[in-house]
Structure formats: C-alpha cells, structure tokens
C-alpha cells in the first residue's frame, strides 16, 4: 500500500564530497511530490537514496514509520520510471509489465487481470505483443509507467521521465501521468528541472539548491510566495530592488532608493523601521500609473498575449547582477503601448510583491513558511 515518506537529516557523501548535507522532508501519503532545482543540485541523488540505489551516509529515510536505510532496493517495493525508459528489450510489452508481478508469485488469472487493467489505463493494450524497440518514445514511457505501477508499489519514483520526449508529447504524457497517478492514488516523487512541468503536475514542489531544500509548498504558493530570493528568481522571473522598511504610527511601508514609498499591509513583525530589504516584483506585478518607479524602456518583445518590456533603472536602485528587469503588459487590458526609449512610471502591486531580508534568505511577509 501507498506510504508517506519521512526523510530525516539524510546525508549523502561521495568520498569527501558532501552532496546532501542533511535534508528533512515529509512527503504525504498519496501526494504527487516534485523535486525541482538546477542541474547538479542533487535531485537524482535524493531520489536514488529513496529507491535504494544510493547509500545513505547519515540520517534516516522512513516509509511510514519503518526506517528503510538498510533494506536493499529490491525489497523496498518501489516503482521507478527512468529517463531512458529502461524497457527490457528482449521482452514484449506485456512481458515487461508482467516482470514485477511474476516475482510476486501471483496466480495466473490475477496477473492477467492486473496486466490487462493497467495496459488499459495507460492505453497501450494494442501494442502488448510488440517488442519495445518498435514503439515510439511516448509509448515506451507508457510501458515504463505501467510496469512500475502494476506492482502496486509503496511509492512511485520518476526521474525526468519526460525529458526525452518532444514538447507536444511531453504535455500529453504529463497529464497522462497525473491522471494515472490520481487514479491509482500512489505516493509519487517526481524529479524534473522543467518548472512549467513541475507547476502544472504537482501537489507540492520542493525547490532544491546544492542539496538543500529551499522551500516546499503547493505550486501556487511557490510562485506567489517564494520563501527566499533563490526560489523567487528560479521559478519565473523576478525583478529585485533595494529598499528600506519604514514603520510609523500609521503602518509599514518600503521605500525604494528613488524615494518612492510603497505602503505594505502584510509585513511580519520582524520588519522593523530602517531595515534594509529586497523587494521582488514579478514582471506582471507592475502597472503604468502616475505614481511609482520611474524608468526607461530599453527594448521590447511582442509575445502574443503579452508585451515584454526590458527596463532601465538607475543602477543604485537594483540588486546587482540581474539578467534583466522586465515588465510584461497584458495586451487584453493594456491602454497604452510603450515605445523604446520612452520614459514611464510603473507601480508595483503592493499586495503581490514579496519582501526579503537583505541577504535574500527569508521572506518578510506574514505567513510564508519553509515547509508548507
């Protein structure tokens, strides 16, 4: 049966190199949990620790209350879907799916029923007698999924299962996976570095950097209330400004370096008067107003539904080393289009922006937590 996964101070080392310094995570029973992060951050490593293909150098990983550190991979009852599909080339589609069941000594009838059922769920019944080499990538991925699910694993682990497929098929398979997972109701850990994929498919996402979890939350929270500057810039685009907190009798506000003061309703108690902060504004959180931040349009790109403008601000207003400062204008509601070199005043939406400590490590808004 499906289980919850408790990772407690798990450590992974390769020789002297510590890849994961001590990771805590709680994955709920039945949820679709995604590990997202830049290349080399340790997603695969963590997934393979759960699977049992990587040793665990410290801490514990438990399925429900049972610590699995010392249980060999083949006794953990996991289902795994590989990036390279790893379909056994010498077995037919049906034999591939039966492989795990045969090891479980099921009766003939029960096996047949289960295999028929799963072949139907992933819609590959018509190819069941073919050898895998004559299947398309998407079909092979379905076989891999069926083979992993049919054994009713405690957890389903997938490492970038869609990255070898073309863009259209990726979207199609994405919903197929999601559908099958919901139907079977199995705890799933999914690794990807495609953020759009992560946002659309997951119940919760854990964003990782250098072996450390930066935030765990539902996709919507991750996007709208990132826990730190890394998350806010890794998921979608964020423009980062220097600002100072001003607190007086009427309430709190942040003051940008050009003097524009933006009243804030939801700053936490920690944000005290005079504190240096980072204001993170997403491109769609600007609007053209009389009051706001003055800037110049450097360039623009037309993207159908949106216009994206690249902005120029006085250097001292911005956090250094940002690839670009962007404003995206929803063309469905735009009253005025801007031209290159035009001066414009943009106001950030105070209800939407995020305020981080000056070191970028924490969000200063009320109610934003590391683990949701």
């Amino acid at each position, binding site marked *: 049966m499906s289980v919850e996964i408790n990772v407690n101070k798990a450590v992974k080392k390769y020789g002297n190199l510590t890849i994961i310094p001590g990771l805590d995570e709680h994955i709920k029973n039945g949820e679709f949990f995604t590990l997202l992060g830049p290349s080399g951050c340790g997603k695969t490593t963590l997934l393979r620790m759960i699977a049992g293909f990587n040793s665990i150098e410290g801490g514990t990983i438990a399925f429900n209350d049972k610590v699995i550190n010392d249980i060999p991979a083949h006794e953990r009852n*996991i289902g795994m879907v590989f990036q390279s599909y790893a379909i056994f080339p010498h077995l037919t589609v049906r034999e591939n799916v039966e492989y795990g069941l045969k090891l479980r000594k099921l009766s003939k009838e029960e096996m047949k029923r289960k295999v028929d059922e799963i072949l139907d769920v992933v819609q590959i019944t018509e190819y069941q007698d073919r050898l895998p080499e004559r299947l398309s990538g998407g079909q092979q991925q379905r076989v891999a999924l069926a083979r992993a699910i049919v054994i009713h694993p405690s957890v389903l682990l997938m490492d970038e299962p869609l990255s070898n497929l073309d863009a259209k098929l990726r979207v199609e398979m994405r919903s197929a996976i999601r559908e099958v997972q919901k139907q079977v109701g199995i705890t799933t850990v999914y690794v990807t570095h495609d953020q759009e994929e992560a946002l659309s498919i997951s119940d919760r996402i854990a964003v990782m950097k250098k072996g450390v979890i930066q935030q765990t939350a539902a996709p919507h929270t991750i996007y709208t209330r990132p826990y730190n500057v890394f998350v806010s810039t890794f998921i979608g685009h964020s423009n980062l400004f220097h600002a100072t907190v001003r607190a007086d009798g009427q309430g709190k506000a942040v003051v940008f370096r050009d003097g524009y003061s933006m009243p804030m309703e939801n700053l936490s108690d920690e944000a005290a008067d005079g504190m240096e902060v980072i204001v993170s504004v997403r491109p769609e959180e600007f609007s053209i107003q009389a009051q706001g931040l003055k800037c110049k349009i450097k360039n623009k790109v037309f993207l159908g539904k949106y216009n994206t403008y690249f902005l120029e601000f006085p250097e001292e207003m911005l956090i250094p080393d940002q690839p670009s400062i962007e404003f995206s204008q929803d063309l469905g509601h735009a009253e005025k289009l801007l031209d290159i070199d035009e001066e414009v005043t943009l106001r950030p939406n105070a209800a939407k922006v995020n305020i981080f400590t000056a070191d970028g490590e924490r969000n200063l808004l009320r109610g934003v937590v590391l683990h949701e």
Partner: protein
Amino acid sequence: MNKKLIRWDFWTGVTLLAIVVFGLFLIYPLFSLFVTAFQDPETGAFTMGHFTHFFDRRYYYQSMINSFSVTTCVTVLAIIIGTILAYFMSMYRVRGRNIVEICIIISLLSPPFIGAYSWILIGGRSGVLTQWLQSSFGIEAPSIYGFSGILLVLTLKLYPFIYLYVSGALKSIDAALIEAAESLGCSGIRKVFTVIVPLITPTILAGALMVFMNAMADFGTPMLIGEGFNVMPVMIYSEFINEVGDQANFAAAMAAIMVFITSAIFLLQKYIVNRKSFTMSSLRPIQMGELHGIRNVLMHAGIYLLVALSLVPQLMVIYTSFMKTNGAIFVDGYSLDSYRTIFSSLGSAIQNTYLFSTCAIVFIIFLGMTVAYLTTRRKSWLTEVIDTLTMFPYIIPGSVLGITLLLAFNDEPMLLSGTAFIIIISLVIRRLPYTLRSSSAILYQISPSMEEASISLGASPLKTFFRITAVMMLPGVMSGAILSWITAINELSSSVILFTGATKTMSVAIYTEVIRASYGTAAALSTILTVTTIAAMVIFFKVSGRKDVTL
C-alpha cells in the same frame, strides 16, 4: 539479512573462482617457471647458468634471432597485404566480396600447420608442383623449407588479422574527413598517406601486435616446414621433451626469455598506441567507388589471387583426404580409406576435440560474463587484480603455457598432467581474456538503469543479473564464444605439450600423423576440422547477424 549473505556469496564465489583459475593455473605455473629457470638442477641453488648457456651457444641464441627475423618479416608483410586488401575492399566495389571475406576468415581460423603441411604437399621435396616442374621443365624449384616456407605460410595465415582490423577502422572514418582533405586540394595517393593512413595507424598497430604474437608463438608451422631453421617455440619444445627427466630448467629459461620478449613487445605496442590513440565515430561512412578498365581488372586479379593462395592449403587437404592410400603412401585413385582409418583408430581424438573445446567454452562463457559484470559494475581492488591477471595470457605463447602447466602440475598433490582437465584449463586460460574483453564491451552498452528497473520491480541483484543482464549480453557473448570455440578446436601449441594418448585432440593427431608422414589420415582429420570450422562460422553469422568478425 540471510538473503544478503547469499548474494554476497555468489559474487564473492565468482571472484574467488576467477582468482583461483588465474592464480593457480596461470600465475603459479608462471612463477614456478621463472623459479625453475633460475635454479640449478642438482643443488636447487639460484643460478644464471641457464641464461648464460643460452646466450653462449650460437645454436640456441640463433633460434631467438630466427624467431625475431621471421616474425618481423611476417608482421611487415601481413601489414602490407592486409592493409592494401582492406583499402581496396572498403573503397571500391569488388565482385563477390562476401565470398572473398568468408574465404579470408576461414583461412584465418584454420590451424596454421595445415597450411604448412599442404604447402609441403605442393612445394616440398616430393610435392606436386616440385615434381611437375622437375619432370616437365627440368626446373629445380626453390626450397619451401626453412625461412621462406614459414614466411609464406604464416603471412598467408595472419594477414587476415590486419585485414579485419583495418576494414573496421576504414568503416569508422567519416566521409567528411576525406571530403575535407579533397576540398583542401589533397587527392589521390597523397590523400591516402596524409589522411587515411594516419587515421588507421593505431588500428594497424593493434593488428600488428596480434600478428606478431601469433607468429612468434606459432609452433606447428616452423616444426613442420622449418627443418634446419630453428625458432624458439620449436627449440623450447624439443629441449623440453628431451629434458623432462631433470626438471627442464633449461627449457624453462628459454620459455622465460620468450615471455620477456613478448611482454616487451606488448608493452611497447601499448605505449605507442596510448600515445596516438583517438576515437573515431563515423556519421557517414565513406562511399564505395568503382574502378574502371585495367585498374579494375588488376584489382580483382590481385584479390582473387590472394584469396586463392590463402585457400590452397584447405583445398589441397580436402583433395588429398579422398585419395587412395597404401599404408602412408598415396596411390592412384580415390577412396574413403583415410576416413575409415581415422574413425577406427583416432575416433577418440575427434571426440576429445569437441568435448574439450565445448567444456572450455561453457566455462569461458560463464566466467566471461560474470567476471565482466564484476569488473564493470562492481569495481573493487579485487576486480582490478583480476583485470590485470587476465592481461597475461595475451603475452604468453601457447607452448610456454603448456610447459608451465606441465611443470607446475607434474607432482603430487596436484598431479594433473595427462588429464583432460589440464587441457581444458589451458584452453580456458588462453581464450577467456578475449571473451572477457568483448563481454565488458557489451556490458558498457547496456544501461545500468535496465538493471535498476528490474531491482526496483523486486528482483534481487542476482536474479536481475540472470534474468536481464545475462540475457541481454548473451547474443553478443555467444557469437564471440563460437569464434573462441573455433580457435579451441584448432589449438595445437599448448595441447601438443599437454596431451597423452588418452587426451589426444584432432590437431595433435594431425600433427603426429604428419610427423609419421601419414598424410592421408592427417588430411582426413584436417578436412573434418575445416568442415567443422566452416559450419561454426555459418552458425556465427546466423547468431550474430553480422558480416564481419573480430577476434
């Protein structure tokens, strides 16, 4: 926990088995060979005497010089012939290329001493050609015995190595490289020497090593056709046979010298190849062109002549096997007498051949697959040791291996000489490295995620190995095994030292029959070997679905 122990046991068992096989039957005998070589037969004290004895007497050290000169000439000739043949076969359309290729491979896989003795039948003192020239034209044909005979037979037998290696390399040259050279204004013979030759040089060197080692180690050919021209393997063999009574210290010293030489050559080749190695992968192989007019005729004539020369021994042998004999002498007319004789008196040799080589192959397949798995997937210092051990057979000539085994297992408590076991083990030791290497290459192409997929589905690693990894490796390993089987049935140089009456194999029997000048029975036996070889080749091509061979 219990299960874990069993799993640990299996792989440890394989590791141990591999170490025992190589340690006991290769390293230990080799070690005792060296000890014997430095030992005084009477006192058992350390002495360099046997070596100084060797280098003092012209009779002895001349054999080393002879070995060296004939081996070098064979290697050079084989490189020239093999490379040119491969060049034309790969670059131009050749009529009947498949048949040509198969003939080349057959001549490579047949035992070399068949070549030697058929050339004696043709060009020897009372050979067909010699007598015909003598009676029709009164011409004294040049002698086929000695240096030139060995050179002829070994070159014809070994150029296919170079051919196979170089053809493979030419296939992996990207046509774009040639086109780039042409676009830079380089064409014709200059293109060949500035672009193609440098690209295939590492391959030629690899093939050259194979040729050199084979020619150096070959025992049957110089024994039969060398006559007064002594080479080391023959010298070692005869010293050993004469010396058996007292420890064979001198033969051991000569064997040790030979191992030094082959090791030096091996290391030299490795050093050169490592310095110039690069990998090529062709996206678009070179297109075959077509030659016209006289050039086309010349090319075809050359190729067909070469193939005919390579096949002459086989055809000669098959022909003579059907000739009527009276005792050991051929008389006019045809009959199956020779076959009758061998089935009545040498039936056991035929049985032994198939039995020994099949046992050896089963063992080789098992060890080859499991040890390859260990050394690629479960690396440890122990597997490194095994990896190194398995390099040794490349440098140890068959006759030397035979002697070392005999020296080491001639006494209680490990009295193995004269048993079938020791012949099988010598076959295993000599062929296992090749199977190991090809198995590892196959394993590197199988993604580890295949195995992980199986484990994640609940199969233990051991079960996974047998159900997934081994099954996926098998076709490749099997086709390699067939080739190994072919070389095993044709093996002479170590079995000729290890055999006794009861463990005679066909190649040994052919050798002894030839020595007795009983050419009819020798021919019949050879024919059986050749037919078996061809049948196995056909199976090889069916199993592997390939059109080429790598040894």
